[in-house]
């Protein structure tokens, strides 16, 4: 794991942070949160450098209303819900999809939206609803599959739209004066699709440095070093440390597919509320695939279980240890809120890899 390089980077980061007031960097992507912990990188960094987890886990930012709608439709006769595995244990008002399965609903875990469409083709007597959750890494794949369903005139395949866009959430957080963020570790694979250039508005409008990195520890440290140097020098630009995986332009075919099928719309983020221009809905030619319309489902309502502070955690306002439920009532075996349910949720990462809770 090129230890020399890691040690050198940690040294340079520490030197750059000396004499600086506390620097707060936000990592947006759930996979980065886990990688930073798991690799031990987090513990090597100087104490004055705070790494804050943001709303980068698609499951975590899905409002409870969406889960309620998924459970509702799953319980209807003739319906099969196809979903990514991570959604299965998130609790709605009447339990999780796993609980629905226990009550007889047909829930199929899939690796790809393609699998869901394949299933629909193979089971023409079932109404298949695919839970379309995820950021820009995943949204184009849903779009491609909706296009395929349209070409094939598939009448029993529907998508329950829950896709969200990363940048609007990042900008929403920058608008909050209470908890300043000095720079962003930008989501790696979202950037493969949207391109490094997409973060220019954050640099131009807010003068905050951005670094696009992969998940390998030395890479993340390169990104963090770039950010602290920029902060120390009062600079603001997008630095792409992820190499050829991410280009400035991203993947234009994927984006074109996404925006052919979807249009930008307001979306409800768990505990952040309704953010304009932060979600995706089906465009008119594809509306017949909209599960919310077909089954009369309402997905945008939000609700926080009593005592659950996922909302504050998602905004970087609270660390998991600050939540009374963390580690006691709320743990991976019995998750109360989404930050603990998802394997990439901040609380799950802290529970598994973080320091022990005091007191």
């Amino acid at each position: 794991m090129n230890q020399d390089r890691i040690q050198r980077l940690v040294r340079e980061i520490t030197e750059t942070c000396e004499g600086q007031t506390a620097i707060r960097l936000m990592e947006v992507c759930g996979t980065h949160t886990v990688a930073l912990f798991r690799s031990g990188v987090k513990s090597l960094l100087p104490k004055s450098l705070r790494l804050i987890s943001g709303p980068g886990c698609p499951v975590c930012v899905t409002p409870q209303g969406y889960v309620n709608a998924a459970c509702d439709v799953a319980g209807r006769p003739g319906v099969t819900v196809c979903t990514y595995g991570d959604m299965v244990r998130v609790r709605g008002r009447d339990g999780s999809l796993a609980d629905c399965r226990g009550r007889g609903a047909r829930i199929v875990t899939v690796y790809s939206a393609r699998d869901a469409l394949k299933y629909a083709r193979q089971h023409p007597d079932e109404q298949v609803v695919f839970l379309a959750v995820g950021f820009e890494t995943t949204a184009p794949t849903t779009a491609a599959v909706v296009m395929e369903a349209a070409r094939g005139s598939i009448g029993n395949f529907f998508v329950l739209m829950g896709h969200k866009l990363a940048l609007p959430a990042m900008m929403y957080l920058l608008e909050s004066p209470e908890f300043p963020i000095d720079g962003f570790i930008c989501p790696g694979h979202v950037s493969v699709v949207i391109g490094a250039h997409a973060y220019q508005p954050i640099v131009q409008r807010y003068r905050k440095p951005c670094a696009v990195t992969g998940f390998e520890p030395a890479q993340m440290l390169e990104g963090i070093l770039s950010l602290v140097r920029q902060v120390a020098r009062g600079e603001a630009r997008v630095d792409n440390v992820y190499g050829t995986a991410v280009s400035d332009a991203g993947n234009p075919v994927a984006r074109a597919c996404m925006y052919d099928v979807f249009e930008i719309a307001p979306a409800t983020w768990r505990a952040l509320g309704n953010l304009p221009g932060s979600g995706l809905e089906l465009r008119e030619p594809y509306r017949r695939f909209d599960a919310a319309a077909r089954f009369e489902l309402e997905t945008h309502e939000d609700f926080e279980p009593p005592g659950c502070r996922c909302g504050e955690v998602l905004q970087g306002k609270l660390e998991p240890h600050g939540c009374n439920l963390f580690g006691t009532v709320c743990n991976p075996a019995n998750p109360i809120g989404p930050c603990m349910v998802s394997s990439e949720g901040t609380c799950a990462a802290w529970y598994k890899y973080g320091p022990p809770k005091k007191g």
Partner: protein
Amino acid sequence: MKGNNMCLAVPGKILSITSSGDDPLGGQLALVDFQGSRVEVSLQLLPSAREGDWVLVHAGFALQTLNDAEARELWEYLLEAEVVSGTLGETGEAVPEV
């Protein structure tokens, strides 16, 4: 490869390319090798991909080509982080869980 991870894309090598099965206009399908396991991957979002290319794959779709060194580095990290194991499930097809 666990179906849980919505952020992570995984590198694999294109062994062969065929025309799409069910969807003639859907672009090509690739047989991609992930260190021994072979998975059918859509090239609809990366039509420029060619046989022999390393590609970053997410949720059944190739999203980007990588160079050899980067692909290996990413795979090593994913192995070490136990996100992937040496082999994958066969075709990633939906299997109803009872």
